[in-house]
């Protein structure tokens, strides 16, 4: 059985019922302010308008677990926020409220993600969330989600550090299917007791060396501790993309990522911090072509390597 978001249909242009503001085309307020200011000072207006070329894809989003009574409203709000901010598609996983996830827990989450893909066709793309510790069950779930339900990739959280051997079969299957793995990651200069098996950019770089054919996405450089450390740790890991998501809006973070790993390895994400996500890309010093790559082009390239 195929869902609406099958591989063939998942990259189509989204249909929208409401007229949304196109934030990535720039801020009217800011543009007007800058032009007014510039003309007052007798200089050329600064280009505060952000040219929007191509599709905008949030590579890191989440649907709400159905144990929350408000899940339907919250999912709707996510799409409305995307509408407001000019985000065409959201790559979503649904996570269990508590980790480690059980097999039943992640299967339930993935069913809800599939439902979300049907409720918001063309807007929600699905990541299959699994706990690698469940071995065969995790692998079967990935096959089901990618091959039958049209999911676009795999989401791994913090049940295991990504360099632990239990994770390797997941990598090998993702390589076979040609889909990316979005991996939760953070690097703090202290031990994070709540997440003892947290992966960081260094672990992902090590995993990437072991599996150079894998497509890895290091989650939320702007919400994963010391982003300068993370970016530097991933410099020599060409098959790891850096996801810009997270609530931190530190000036220079996106610029440094582009400078160190190259624009082709940076992908736009929000992880629910949506104005922060859009604002950072708008604030980074990028030409229109590079901005378009980060906002969607790089993710489209990644998703285009799918084999299933």
């Amino acid at each position: 059985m195929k869902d609406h978001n099958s591989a063939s249909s998942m990259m189509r242009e989204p249909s929208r019922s409401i007229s949304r503001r196109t934030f990535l085309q720039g801020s009217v307020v800011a543009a007007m302010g800058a032009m007014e200011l510039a003309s007052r000072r007798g200089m050329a207006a600064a280009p505060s308008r952000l040219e929007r070329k191509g599709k905008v894809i949030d590579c890191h989003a989440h649907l709400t677990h159905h144990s929350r009574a408000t899940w339907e409203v919250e999912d709707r709000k996510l799409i409305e926020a995307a509408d407001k901010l000019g985000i065409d598609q959201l790559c979503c996983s649904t996570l269990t409220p508590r980790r480690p996830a059980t097999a039943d827990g992640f299967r339930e989450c993935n069913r809800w993600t599939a439902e979300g893909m049907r409720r918001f066709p063309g807007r929600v793309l699905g990541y299959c969330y699994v706990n690698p510790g469940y071995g065969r069950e995790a692998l079967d779930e990935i096959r089901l989600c990618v091959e039958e339900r049209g999911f676009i990739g795999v989401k791994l959280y913090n049940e295991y550090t990504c360099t632990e051997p239990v994770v390797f079969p997941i990598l090998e299957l993702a390589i076979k299917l040609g889909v990316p793995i979005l991996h939760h990651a953070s690097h703090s200069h202290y031990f994070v007791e709540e997440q003892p098996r947290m992966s960081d950019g260094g672990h992902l770089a090590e995993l990437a060396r072991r599996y150079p054919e894998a497509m890895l996405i290091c989650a939320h450089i702007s919400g994963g501790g010391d982003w300068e450390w993370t970016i530097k740790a991933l410099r020599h890991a060409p098959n790891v993309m850096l996801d810009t998501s997270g609530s931190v809006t530190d000036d220079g973070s996106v610029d440094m990522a582009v400078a160190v790993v190259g624009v082709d390895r940076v992908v736009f994400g929000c992880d629910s911090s949506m104005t922060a996500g859009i604002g950072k890309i708008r604030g980074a010093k990028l030409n229109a072509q590079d901005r378009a790559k980060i906002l969607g082009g790089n993710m489209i390239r990644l998703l285009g390597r799918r084999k299933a």
Partner: protein
Amino acid sequence: MIVDVNAYLGHFAFRRLRHNTPESLLVLMDSKGIDKAVVSSAGAITYRNSQAGNEELAEEVRRRGDRLIPFAVINPFYAGWQDDLQICHEQFGMKGLRIYPKWHNYQLSSQCCRELVDAATERGMVISIPIRVEDNRQRSWLLNIPDVPLTEIIELVKACPKARFILLNGIGYTGCSLGQKDSALPRNYAIGLSRLTAVLANELGQLVTNLGAKRVMFGTGMPFNYPDPALVKLEVLDSSEADKERIRSQNAMTWLRL
């Protein structure tokens, strides 16, 4: 007109900042349409003697007072703070101050802090309190500075009803009396929007509803932060143009008598 109540100049001890000189900050402000910014010394956050940072700042903003509005950083537990406050106000023309209770290791409820607030209030100065400087998860191995708890802010605004506070870089106000409608707190504080959500939970919209647009101010946190996220928040805020204008500039202009 856009007035940013949350900007800085100088160096920060744990990360290189761009746009941290008057010239480069003004270029950034021009590119974003920001007319004026309240600035304080980033270096003074970690200097033992914060007055050295205030002196650097005063020198830097000299002749740029039309756009850069200097605020002092005062540590009420450091010797001579009363002299520093007087110099900052009378000689440097600083209209307000920023206090860092966690970075400078004191309680907002302490007698010294209350004396500072009273002295600043007597001078008509605004007191701004950054709830945080950076996200704690990226902190250096050298230190662990927590956010200022909103519970401590509540006690301060209650204890000093005549003072005027601007709360910066915080979230979660709607979860306590600071951001709730018809709370018994005095209306002596305004909230900067830099970290507030403007979609999904939309705390910014809730604060405008609960407290009124007169109690919310535009601020970016630049050059620590990209200014654009704050601009985007204001743009997506589902509010009247009159309310947005209050947030964008009018409230700050009124409070700072600009």
